[in-house]
């Protein structure tokens, strides 16, 4: 079981580094394309009121990010395929138990998202000159829709594992009672919104960070300005949504349905009326207390229930065999996520303020900050998933199936085989990771411009 968990942790974590960027970028590429396609100087709402010159820059930016998108998408696809098959290879007992329910959402992802995404990414990357202006714009929208629908069905699957609904048990297997109820799982909308806004934060900071990079170097000024303005506004919008309402509501969902997970996130050992919100501190599970803590009294109770003195259940009142197997991991992952989320919001707010006052392009410290923030958005996203997945332990389906019972039986997949394939995946992914970084560095070093704005762009735009 340990081997299977290690393997899934490795493959899913590596995989998610790519869709988090493609889902975020898909949104912004679709926005850039929409502005360049629909924008006019008159008779348009303010965000679309653009000159031809500006629209060309937007279009060039969309072309440029499409290059980054293409490489990221390719790695995301090939590293995603193993995940669907690993349910069967390493988690056969779980698949057998849950396939009657989550088979629905996983198959729906294939049928509704992947077909659209794969067909239209081909059309989009073929380029405007081959497919025409309108189809190129539509394909950008379809790629965006495909990738966000794909995210929806994955979260729907995960939401069932976090909070199983709409099933009944027959002969030791979960059977679906109602597809409608599965897709309206109360857990689903907030987890989905929180996750997608997290991806959009990464996409937005990728735009802003790249704009900052070129501005600091004094290259590609027009392109960099578009990246900065779209990126900073996007970062502000989505960093805000990330915390409120999505993060807030998602946390309340956890408090309600997974008290063990919630207590671990806050390292709350004692059941308390008026529980404090922990800012920093080091949980000591042996002594069952939080050391060196800075706390905001009563704040946790208030955030959870809007009342200062609500009682929250601590880990001491939960049997240890239902604790997440690593309380400190859940705690630290959660605090890293929340801490980074707050910092990202502050950065976005300051940058937006400078942008509004027209001083962003000259503020080198702010540009440096925006550039260096990009990797931390990945850390925050991965930390968030770590909270969700380790907080759910020791269950693979919360309250229904323990994780160790979900792995493939040792008589079917011997541990040695699992170790061999972990090593194989690790080596392969290390290689792919290095190649990916090299290719992205090269695309960024070359910069936009080469072939990005064809000579007939003006004509094509006015004709459309």
């Amino acid at each position: 079981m340990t081997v299977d968990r290690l393997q899934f942790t490795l493959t899913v974590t590596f995989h998610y580094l790519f869709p988090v960027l493609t889902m975020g970028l898909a949104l912004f590429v679709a926005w850039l394309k929409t502005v360049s396609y629909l924008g006019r100087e008159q008779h348009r709402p303010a965000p679309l009121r653009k000159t031809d010159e500006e629209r060309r820059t937007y279009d060039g930016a969309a072309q440029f990010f499409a290059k980054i998108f293409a490489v990221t998408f390719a790695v995301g696809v090939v590293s995603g395929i193993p995940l669907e098959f690993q349910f069967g290879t390493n988690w056969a007992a779980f698949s057998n138990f849950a396939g009657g329910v989550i088979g629905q959402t996983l198959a729906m992802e294939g049928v509704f998202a992947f077909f659209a995404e794969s067909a239209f990414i081909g059309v989009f990357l073929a380029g405007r000159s081959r497919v025409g202006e309108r189809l190129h714009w539509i394909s950008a929208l379809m790629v965006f829709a495909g990738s966000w629908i794909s995210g929806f069905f994955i979260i729907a699957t995960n939401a069932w594992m976090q909070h199983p609904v709409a099933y009944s048990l027959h002969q030791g297997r979960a059977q679906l009672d109602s597809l409608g109820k599965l897709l309206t799982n109360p857990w689903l909308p907030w987890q989905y919104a929180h996750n997608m806004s997290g991806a959009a934060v990464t996409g937005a900071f990728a735009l802003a960070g790249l704009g900052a990079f070129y501005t600091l170097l004094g290259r590609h000024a027009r392109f960099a300005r578009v990246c900065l303005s779209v990126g900073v506004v996007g970062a502000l919008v989505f960093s805000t949504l990330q915390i409120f309402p999505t993060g807030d509501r998602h946390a309340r969902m956890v408090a309600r349905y997974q008290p063990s997970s919630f207590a671990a996130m806050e390292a709350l050992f004692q059941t308390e009326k008026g529980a404090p919100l922990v800012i920093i501190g080091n949980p000591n599970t042996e002594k069952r207390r939080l050391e060196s803590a800075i706390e905001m009294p009563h704040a946790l109770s208030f955030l959870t229930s809007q009342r200062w003195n609500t009682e929250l259940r601590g880990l001491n009142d939960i049997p240890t065999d239902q604790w997440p197997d690593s309380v400190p991991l859940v705690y630290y992952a959660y605090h890293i996520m929340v801490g980074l989320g707050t910092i990202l919001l502050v950065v976005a707010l300051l940058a937006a303020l400078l942008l509004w006052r027209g001083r962003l392009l000259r503020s080198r410290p702010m540009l440096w900050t925006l550039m260096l923030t990009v990797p931390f958005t990945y850390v925050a996203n991965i930390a968030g998933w770590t909270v969700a997945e380790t907080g759910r332990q020791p269950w693979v389906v919360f309250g229904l199936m323990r994780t160790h019972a979900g792995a493939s039986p040792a008589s079917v997949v011997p541990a040695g085989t699992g170790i061999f394939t972990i090593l194989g995946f690790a080596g392969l992914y290390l290689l792919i990771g290095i190649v990916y970084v090299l290719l992205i560095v090269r695309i960024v070093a070359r910069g936009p411009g080469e072939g990005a704005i064809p000579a007939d762009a003006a004509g094509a735009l006015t004709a459309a």
Partner: protein
Amino acid sequence: MATLWFVLLALMITVYVVLDGFDLGVGALHRILARSDEEREQAASAIGPVWNGNEVWLIASGGVLFLAFPAAYAAAFSGLYLGLILVLWLLIGRGLGLELRHQLDNPLWRAACDTVFWLSSAILAFVLGVALGNVVRGVPLRRDGYFHLPLFDILNAYAVLVGVVALVVLAAHGATFLAARATGALAQRARRYARRLWWGELVLVCGLAAPTYDVRPQMLTAFGDHPWRLVFPALMVVALAAGFVWQRAGRWRLAFLASCALIAGLLSSAAAGLYPNVLPAREHQPFGLTIHNAASGDHALGVAVAWWSIGIVLAAGYFVVAYRLFMRDSRA
């Protein structure tokens, strides 16, 4: 209802092999047929925009197997563990080899990508055949619904034979595709190979009957019990004959269609012979997984028919858009 899902699953797998089959076949012959950098570029860009969409049929088929027959999905994927993981690694290698070859303008980089793409496509075609061979032969399912096959048992004689059939049939499929699509010396060579591989197909497809009867007599007797199912092997025979005629006549687009029909005939015959087994046990062993004991609940299967139909119509629409676009303008 479970029967309907058996048919839909067979249909999706067939579509997968017909579509991804030609890009696998082009890959399996990549460094053999395309000898210069320009020719390899031509071969790669003939399949570049569509291979990913083709491969989605594999993912969607896996999803449908998981949805409709979770017990078979769990047993097959864990029991054939090393084979499956090998497939995953090959899919990764092949996808990246093809997608990343354009990314660096360096002959060594392209050579490396082309070689990875070529070898992983060829081995993948073989391994997919091996997997099918093991399903037809049956696996040593236990009472608890699982089995374990070590790597060398996965590579048993019958499965290896089916693997070779798969490699030859897909290589011929790919060669016929290039024969119809490519130009210049590449097209000439593809045509020569397609004609030669046709004889391989003839020998292997005919030669497969006896060993199949040996491992699972039901595969052939099923047709005696249900004569209407003979349409599937008949399709196979007609497709082989038509392929021969059209190849000689130089009608390569029609020959490619015949190759599609041959694959459809092969796989539908296999499905017709297996029904109602989804994952059979070895001959004379009791714990096989059938549409009766491996299927999901009725609500799951019923509601899925509804959304599946909508989704597949949409998907077919996207494919028509994409294929019309790419097939049209690279001919021009």
